[in-house]
């Protein structure tokens, strides 16, 4: 596709993709024109811009309708407060990169994180053209040699960048170190930041400290987000909640504003089984859950509006899936539906509409999320 990913997969056929893409390509073109006009109105350059219009209702609307693909990374960085953070953390990234080379007892990276990063590098977007190693170069030049004798192709440059960013981040935030799913997040950041490692590092820091605090920590708190989501689900989509609820809902609701016990001892409130399908929604920020274009649109708003985006998108997924969920009795089948549902949600405009409709989840604002976490 336009980002180097495969168009079709187990969940979306090539025909479905093409049918959607024809209209969506025109849609991107229309939005692009609007963005150009907006940028010009603010006297901003449109050729590889790094500055974007100040936040306003209008700009928020524009972002919700999608940032032009070629500006995405820069706009994410801008609206997430990247430039300010970068100014405060001048040189930090490259210093970390240098320190990573040292042994652990001299302030370098520990072997476990190093090894875990290495293990996942080649497992990050293996189907994306930028992450694939170049095919062995011109086999014709050496007709005698057999395929087995060709050396392993070198890693593509973006994998080397990914390695450095993940290592530097692990060193920078020892509470997290390296957590699986960060490979996907950092990989997608690099893809859209034209492999600017320092900016990818800054945004990774924003995501893990501002948007998803604790979620990736060594003592995993991913279930805090899920607990909040289940709360919201019960309030906003009671029919869906009733179908998935297989635990004691009373357990689920610790006193507002309080985090559950860290970790997941037996004292942890019981979440309905189906909620476990949503772990990657938060940890991977919908990568691998939603089709790539839908994921990118979520990220557009995430960096502009904050983590409430994740909760509202999640609710929208359940809302759109409500008919299929309610059609099923068997709780394990419901799990499969919830697991599979978002992977087919190619029509991101419909998803976003459900997500942002004021009548729908308008009350799910950032203050509410922060309080319930």
């Amino acid at each position, binding site marked *: 596709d336009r980002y180097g990913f495969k168009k079709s997969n187990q969940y979306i056929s090539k025909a479905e993709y093409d049918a959607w893409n024809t209209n969506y390509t025109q849609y991107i073109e229309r939005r692009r024109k609007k963005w150009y006009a907006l940028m010009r109105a603010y006297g901003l350059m449109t050729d590889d811009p790094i500055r974007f219009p100040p936040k306003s209702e209008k700009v928020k609307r524009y972002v919700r309708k999608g940032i032009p693909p070629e500006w995405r990374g820069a706009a994410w960085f801008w609206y997430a407060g990247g430039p300010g953070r970068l100014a405060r953390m001048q040189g930090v990234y490259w210093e970390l990169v240098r320190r990573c080379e040292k042994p652990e007892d001299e302030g370098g990276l520990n072997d476990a994180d190093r090894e875990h990063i290495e293990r996942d590098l080649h*497992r990050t977007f293996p189907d994306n053209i930028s992450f694939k190693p170049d095919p062995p170069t011109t086999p014709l030049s050496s007709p005698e040699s057999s395929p087995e004798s060709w050396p392993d192709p070198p890693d593509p440059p973006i994998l080397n960048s990914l390695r450095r960013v993940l290592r530097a981040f692990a060193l920078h935030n020892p509470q997290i170190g390296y957590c699986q*799913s960060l490979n996907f997040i950092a990989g997608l950041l690099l893809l859209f930041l034209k492999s600017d490692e320092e900016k990818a590092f800054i945004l990774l820091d924003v995501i893990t400290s501002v948007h998803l605090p604790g979620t990736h920590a060594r003592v995993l708190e*991913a279930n805090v987000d899920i607990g909040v989501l289940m709360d919201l689900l019960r309030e906003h989509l009671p029919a869906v909640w009733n179908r998935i609820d*297989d635990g004691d809902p009373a357990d689920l609701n610790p006193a507002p504003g309080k985090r559950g016990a860290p970790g997941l001892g037996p004292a942890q409130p019981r979440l309905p089984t189906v909620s476990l399908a949503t772990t990657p929604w938060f940890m991977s920020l919908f990568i691998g859950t939603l089709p790539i274009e839908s994921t990118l649109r979520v990220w557009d708003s995430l960096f502009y509006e904050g983590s409430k985006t994740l909760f509202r998108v999640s609710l929208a997924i359940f809302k759109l899936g409500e008919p299929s969920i309610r059609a099923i009795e068997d709780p*394990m089948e419901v799990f499969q539906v919830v*697991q599979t549902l978002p992977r087919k949600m190619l029509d991101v405009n419909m998803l976003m509409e459900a997500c942002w409709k004021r009548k729908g989840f308008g009350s799910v604002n950032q203050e509410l999320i922060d309080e319930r976490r």
Partner: protein
Amino acid sequence: MAESTGTPTPRPSSSVKLVLLGEAAVGKSSLVMRFVNNDFQENKEPTIGAAFLTQKCNLPNRTIKFEIWDTAGQERFASLAPMYYRNAQAALVVYDITKPQSLTKAQHWVAELQRQASPGIVIALVGNKADLASPGSFPAPGDDADGVEANADAEQDESDARKVPTREAKAYAEEEGLLFYETSAKTGQYVAEVFTAIAHAIPESSLKGPRGVGGQTNLGRDDGARVNLAGPRETGPKEGCAC
């Protein structure tokens, strides 16, 4: 909940909750992908949280529907594992035959399951990536009833990436009363056999129709449940898991 599907089936059908545990990147998801879709993907993406899949397995006198929980391998996800192995009737604990460390991790999982999971849970220890061993050290199908006896003492050779001798893992499995297989999700070797063996090993008494909600909670403390390496006694070529 539906007491039974109501549709007359030739064989009684029952659900078995099965959980996969093991270190990251040993091939848990790949084993499931081979078993469920008969497919393999190089550099499979790491699993975040867990994935849920189902697959049927036909035995001569009954049909088993596996409800498979494929968990994330990284250490920090281990705190989530009890939610997945709670009420599980079977567990597949996977290690990578080229990574001794992963067998140690597998042994930890076995110990935790024996301590915390349902009594009578059927545990299979599975050494994956057997295709990376030199041909001599990986028994071909039909060499032996349970597929691991032959060549257990094969000499290491240089092209052999195997670091965990079959003998060592097998001895451990015997001691703990686990099913034991060496598999390759890549070639498909012995993948279906693992699931078939587990299906055979589940005691009849713990099978309760299509499903007890949330898994069966009334598993008897059935000592016969931990089957030994004698393994599937009657695994014929006709039956077996769809694969």
